[in-house]
Each structure stands twice: as C-alpha cells, then as structure tokens.
C-alpha cells in the first residue's frame, strides 16, 4: 500500500470515528428526572418534558401528565422511588407531546383521562410536526367536557375545563385536600404561550385563570414547566398577561404588521426571534387582537 492509500484510509477512518461520535452524542439518555416532595403523598417530577404531579394513595397512584414517550422508564422509576403503588390513572392537562407523549406506554395499564378537545387535538394532529420530538400521543379513552373526579383511597383528584387558554382543552387538576392545583401550560414560564392551532386564546387565558382563582382554594401551583409557585404569583402572572394583551392589542390595532409585532414583543417582552412565543403566539395574535 502506498502513501496515498494510507492517507485515504486514515481519512476514511477519521471520518468514521467522527461520525460514530456524532451518532452516540445523539443517542444520549433523556435528561435526568428530579423528584420533589410537596406534601405527604404529593410529588412533582421535573426534567425533560412537562412537570408531572404524583398523587400517592393507598389504592394506587394518580399522575398528572406523562412527559415524552422516551421518559417512560425514568418516570416509572421515579414514581417507584417514592411508592410501591401502581399508577392507576393519568390526567392529561393538554394534548402537547411533552405532556401526553408518555400515554402510549401507560395506556395498557393506566386509565388516561383528558378533555374531549384534547383527545380530538391528538387525533387530528393539531401540533405541527416541527414541534414534535416523538410519535403522536395516544389519546385518552375516557374524556370529559366540564369536570371529572377520581376518588381513590379516600382521596379526590379533580379535573376541570375552565375555558380556552393555552389550548381549547386545558384541564386544570385540583388536589382539594392538599390545596394544590396543576395549571398545565396555562402557566409555564414568565410569558404566556398560546397554541392557536390547538384552539388557544390570549384574550381568554386571563379570564380562564380568573375562574380557577375563583373556584378553588389553593396555596400551591404546579406549573407545566418551571418551578413550583403559589397563588399570589398566579395572580401577578394573570395581571401581567392582561397588561401584555392590552399593550399588544393597542399596537396591532394601530395597523402594524406581523413583523412589527414580532419586534415589539422581542423588545418589550424578550420573546427571542426563534422562541416558541414568537412561532406559536405572534401570528394568532395578529388575528385575535385586531
């Protein structure tokens, strides 16, 4: 073999090594999940995908949301680390894959419950493909329109649809005896996220949150993403949405273009150009706030 061949072989080998490294980097295990205890028998699991709530009872476990399909084993292990009880019910807050992707793995052994609209949104693939990281979620077989409760081991977990917000099928989950609510992605960061294709509404979101505040006695709020928070912070968050909407609506009603609105939201609310708020909210806001 002459020198040229060696160089070629070396180059090919190097290429293969780099390709192999790149491949294994993409096969990293999902980010670790972290279990936080809120109360005796109520936990929150953060990391990769949505926050998951875990209500432990002596007749089984009730989850709120199920993260991505890829998180299933880690999620089951996290629940096992706090209780030997089996997962019997899973309430889905809404149809997005980071909340309902895990349904496919849980459906054989747990009853998944969502609003009717959430089921429809999954079946009609309302989420654009570029926001999906895995297969479409499996919808709930058991759905409700207004309110549904599960009573297990002397405990009630209640789910209710209060109106449009993040989507048109957001379920708010309430643990009455623990004065805690799960808001799904109606609260998932400093800025609101509205999935217009999924039936969400920026104008309705603060009204819906207002109904939650009126209806339920709670101190603790489990958000769809991000840290635990409380009633006072929800009140503030809701007021901020009203302010944001008022300002954005005034701006849009001056006859501004979508690009101008995008820049306004970037300047005033730090919605980065490729952020989910820019992609998800801004086009729909142009229509809704006209």
């Amino acid at each position: 073999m002459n020198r040229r061949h060696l160089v070629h072989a070396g180059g090919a080998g190097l290429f293969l090594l780099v390709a192999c490294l790149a491949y294994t980097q993409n096969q990293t295990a999902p980010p670790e999940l972290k279990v936080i205890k809120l109360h005796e028998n109520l936990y929150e699991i953060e990391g990769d995908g949505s926050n998951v709530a875990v209500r432990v009872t002596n007749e089984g476990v009730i989850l709120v949301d199920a993260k991505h399909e890829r998180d299933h084993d880690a999620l089951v292990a996290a629940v096992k680390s706090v209780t030997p009880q089996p997962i019997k019910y899973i309430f889905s807050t809404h149809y997005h894959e980071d909340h309902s992707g895990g349904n496919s793995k849980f459906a054989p052994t747990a009853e998944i419950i969502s609003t009717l609209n959430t089921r429809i949104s999954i079946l009609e693939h309302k989420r654009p493909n570029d926001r999906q990281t895995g297969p479409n979620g499996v919808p709930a077989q058991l759905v409700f329109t207004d309110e549904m409760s599960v009573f297990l081991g002397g405990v009630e977990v209640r789910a209710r649809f209060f109106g449009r917000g993040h989507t048109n099928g957001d379920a708010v989950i309430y643990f009455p005896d623990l004065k805690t609510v799960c808001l799904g992605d109606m609260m998932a960061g400093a800025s609101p996220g509205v999935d217009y294709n999924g039936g969400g509404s920026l104008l309705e979101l603060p009204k819906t949150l207002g109904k939650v505040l009126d209806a339920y006695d709670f101190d603790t709020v489990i958000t769809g993403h991000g840290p635990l928070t409380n009633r006072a912070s929800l009140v503030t968050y809701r007021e901020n949405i009203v302010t944001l909407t008022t300002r954005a609506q005034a701006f849009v009603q001056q006859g501004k273009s979508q690009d101008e609105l995008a820049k306004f939201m970037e300047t005033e609310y730090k919605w980065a150009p490729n952020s989910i708020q820019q992609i998800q909210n801004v086009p729909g806001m142009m229509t809704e706030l006209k």
Partner: protein
Amino acid sequence: MNRRHLVRLAAAGLFLFIAWIAWTQNQTAPAELKVNKVRDNLYEIEGDGGNVAVRITNEGVILVDDKYERDHDAIVAAIKSVTPQPVKYVFSTHYHEDHAGGNAKFLPTSEIISTKNARTSILEHKQLDASPNILPARVVFTEETSVFLGGAEVRAHYFGRGHTDGDAVIYFPDLKTIHTGDLMADTSDLRMGTSPTVDYRGGGSLLEYPKTIDKVLAAYDFDTVIPGHGPVTNRQGLATYRDNVVKLIARAQAFIRQGKSQAELARFMQTEYRWAPTSLPQQWSVPGMMTELK
C-alpha cells in the same frame, strides 16, 4: 323407643323439613334475566332490577347499569352468551340499588362511572331501603363524559334533575339509541304503572322532570330508547311519556292548590294513577310533591 318418642321424633323431623323448605324458598335464584338484541353489538338485559344495556366493541364491553348485587353471575353469563369480550366500563344511570347494586361485584375488574351526585347519594345512603353495602363509582363527572373503545363512543350526560339529581342519560351516537335510566320507567310489572317516580330525598324534581326530558330530545339524534324499566321503545314513546308527566303535574298541582292534605293527595294518586298505598311513588314522591307543587 316407645310410641310417644316416635311421634315426637316424627314431629321434630317434619318441623325441620318444613323449616328447610321455607329457608330454601327464600333462597330462590333471582328472577331469570332475558337478553334482547337491540342493534348489532347492542343488547338489553331485562329481569330483576333495572334494564342493563350491553355495548360490545372489539376492545371490550361497556355496560349501562348493573342491577342488584345478586344478579351479578347471571349478568356475566348473559353477556358471555353474546360476546367473549370482558366488561371494561359500567355507566351508572343513577344511585338506586336496582341499577347500582352490582357495583361491588364489577368494581374489581371494570371502571364504574357515574355523576358526582350519584356517588354522593350512595355514600349518604339516600335510598333508605337499599343495602348499606352498595359501592359508588370511583370516577365521576358533572356534565358529560365519553368512553371511546374499539372505535365506538358511549356518552353520558347530566341534563338536570328528574328522577334524582344525578341522572345520567347514556347515548350510543352511532346506534341512535339512548338509555334513559329511570327518567323513563314503565314499572307496570312492579305495580307502579307508567307514571314517573320522583325520588325527592335523592334530589329529584317533578317540575324539572319534563324539562330534563326535553333537553334529551333536543340534544340527541336517536330512534331507540332503552328505559330504566319496561320494554324497549322509541323517540315517540319518550315524547309521550314526557307529555304524560306534564299532565300529571298539572292535575296534581291543581289538586294540591285546592288546599288538599297529603293523605288526600295520596288517595288521588292511587285512584288516578294507580299508585298502590305502599308503593315507592307513594313513599318517595307524595310528600315532596306537597312541597314542590304548592
């Protein structure tokens, strides 16, 4: 052994024999159940307790109501006679024992679903003559719920007060059939006639009754009606039943407003509607009617 002893022994034996026969008579098997086909993959089971609907899908069976606890084995056998599929869900139309008594036997293997009020009524023992052992649904709804199984939908909706304050009307949309629970009940076989029974203790209302039925007629497209008791009927049958409720209200209200007493109302309902003196409508409805129809 002398003759006196023999006579006494024979008498004792005869007594025991008669006692044994009396005991076995009280242990009669529940009335036989009869399976009627309503549609492809929809059956009705009548006999002993409320009518049960059986919706068969290729992923399991959904029942509406489960009769008395004593009927469990016969219900399971009746279902097995038409499908090998397991019972996955049971919708309860309301809390009365002849519709929900079987819950305890089905709960280990099936999800039972009812209105929230039906659960509360069971837990608070609102039906005084019911077994204290009835178990309520674990999964409850307020307005509407659906189960989607094997491509079929079974929907339950609370339309308002009537027989109780927790009546679920069950709809099989693809089969244009509803199950009304006791919002429509022909209980001629129980000597209660075809007039409505309002369980006031369980939150029912005679005045709301026809309005609730009207909402059902307006909301759902259906031809066939499975009532809580009595033969399968149709939309017109339900409309006629509703009209009869309106007439009953008008007549009873006029009577009460003449200043009649409860005993006089009781006699009126017995004469005009054949409500036998010790029947459920007399116990459950007459006192409440005095108040509601004033």
